[in-house]
């Protein structure tokens, strides 16, 4: 069965420090990987995606993610966290044969000033 795992319910980081939000996946075929952010009472906003090419993907708001095929991971990173980055982050994936997104359980990022 296809799945996406976000092992951390919450990540706490001080403003200005680097952040990492972890994601691992299990899908059939070549993976299509996505990160979305959800602010309170708002819809999901697309951050970045990996389909093919460079393993390091750059996205919105200074976020980037690294695709690691051997570890089946797609961790979200940012060199310097902002308080305004505090939100709920979802990793999502689908295999090449389908376009149905499977979501992880979400990770709440809390950036302290």
């Amino acid at each position, binding site marked *: 069965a296809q799945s996406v795992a976000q092992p951390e319910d919450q990540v706490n980081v001080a403003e200005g420090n680097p952040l990492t939000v972890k994601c691992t996946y299990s899908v059939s075929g070549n993976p*299509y990987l*996505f990160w*979305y952010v959800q602010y309170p*009472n*708002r*819809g*999901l*906003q*697309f951050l970045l*995606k990996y*389909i093919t090419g460079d393993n390091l993907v750059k996205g919105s708001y200074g976020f980037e993610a690294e695709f690691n095929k051997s570890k089946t991971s797609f961790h979200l990173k940012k060199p310097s966290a902002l308080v305004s980055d505090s939100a709920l982050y*979802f990793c*999502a994936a689908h295999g090449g044969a389908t*376009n*149905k*997104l*499977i*979501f*992880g*359980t*979400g990770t709440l990022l809390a950036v302290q000033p």
Partner: protein
Amino acid sequence: SAVISQKPSRDICQRGTSLTIQCQVDSQVTMMFWYRQQPGQSLTLIATANQGSEATYESGFVIDKFPISRPNLTFSTLTVSNMSPEDSSIYLCSVEDLLGEKYFGPGTRLTVT
């Protein structure tokens, strides 16, 4: 990018009634999907809305409970029928454009009393 609107943005409904949620996108898209996000949980795909034909439902979701229409390439409705408190969720419309980009609407927050 596709801009998606949903109506209503929120509603409080009584047990046993039905609510129809509308999703409108500002451009023609290939795929439209409906997701549910229960309180404190991740997103679960309900169904794929197919233009001019019956929707394709995921395991655990049935047409009688969640009838879906998609009369054209830019509009879809989801009805939550015979509601119970367990149906209290955020319902999100999602689309995939010709480039394979996926976008989400702002969601409809439903509370069933």
